[in-house]
């Protein structure tokens, strides 16, 4: 388990660095696919099988492919000209390192930081419990419906914005 965690963590972090540093945007999008696969493996490691499958289907199957289409639709002959990072990239790097340090500082002050995992209760069906929680009126049916309305609104908005204006 520990070896698997370090393997997936290395894949995730290395691919994420490539996503933000690759000059070719198609390569950056493909490195994003690698990062998302690592995160899906991490979900499987955390006993969240449904999340792992949804990660592969939605993030890799839909979102990453959408990115690749968008990159192909917005390239011309002068593609990849100029620097990939803007002039203030060192300031951005400083802010990122400060945010990382600040998060670590805050987390290390929290009492549950190095909590060990308890085993799953025997006979516990995580996927079934998740499905019931999503449609149960006592639990999360309202956020679930709001998410579906949001997706419809986003779909209509995306079609309207990207439609060619006559």
């Amino acid at each position, binding site marked *: 388990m520990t070896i698997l965690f370090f393997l997936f963590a290395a894949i995730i972090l290395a691919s994420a660095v490539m996503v933000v540093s690759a000059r070719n*945007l198609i390569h950056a999008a493909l490195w994003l696919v690698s990062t998302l696969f690592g995160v899906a493996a991490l979900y499987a490691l955390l006993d969240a099988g449904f999340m792992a499958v949804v990660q592969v289907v939605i993030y890799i199957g839909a979102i990453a492919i959408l990115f690749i289409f968008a990159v192909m639709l917005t390239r011309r002959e002068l593609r990849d000209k100029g620097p990939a990072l803007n002039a203030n990239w060192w300031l951005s790097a400083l802010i990122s390192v400060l945010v990382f340090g600040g998060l670590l500082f805050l987390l290390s002050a929290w009492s549950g930081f190095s909590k060990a995992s308890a085993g799953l209760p025997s006979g516990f069906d995580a996927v079934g419990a998740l499905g019931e929680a999503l449609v149960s009126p006592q639990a999360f049916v309202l956020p679930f419906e709001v998410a579906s309305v949001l997706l419809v609104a986003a779909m209509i908005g995306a079609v309207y914005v990207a439609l060619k204006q006559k």
Partner: protein
Amino acid sequence: MIPLSWYLILSAALFSIGLFGVLARRNAIAILLGVELMLNAVNINLVSFWRYGDVTQMAGQVFAIIVFAVAAAEVAVGLALIISVYRTRKTVVADELDLMKW
């Protein structure tokens, strides 16, 4: 076994890398790629808090699924905006989109 802190540190590192991408990249699509990394870092946190807390309470996973839906909506609208901007301005470099800059 793996303590909770390793997941939290990994997620903080992934979030910081995504933040760097958002702040430093010039291409608008690359900025959206950075946002995706940050959303994934948040999801790792949510799922690991679910696993290390009370597993019979599904709030962590439900919240992560809502984040999935929001990420899909954000990408659809964001990429539509970028394609629309590309049609009128012939560029997707964020520095050059300065029509509303005072």
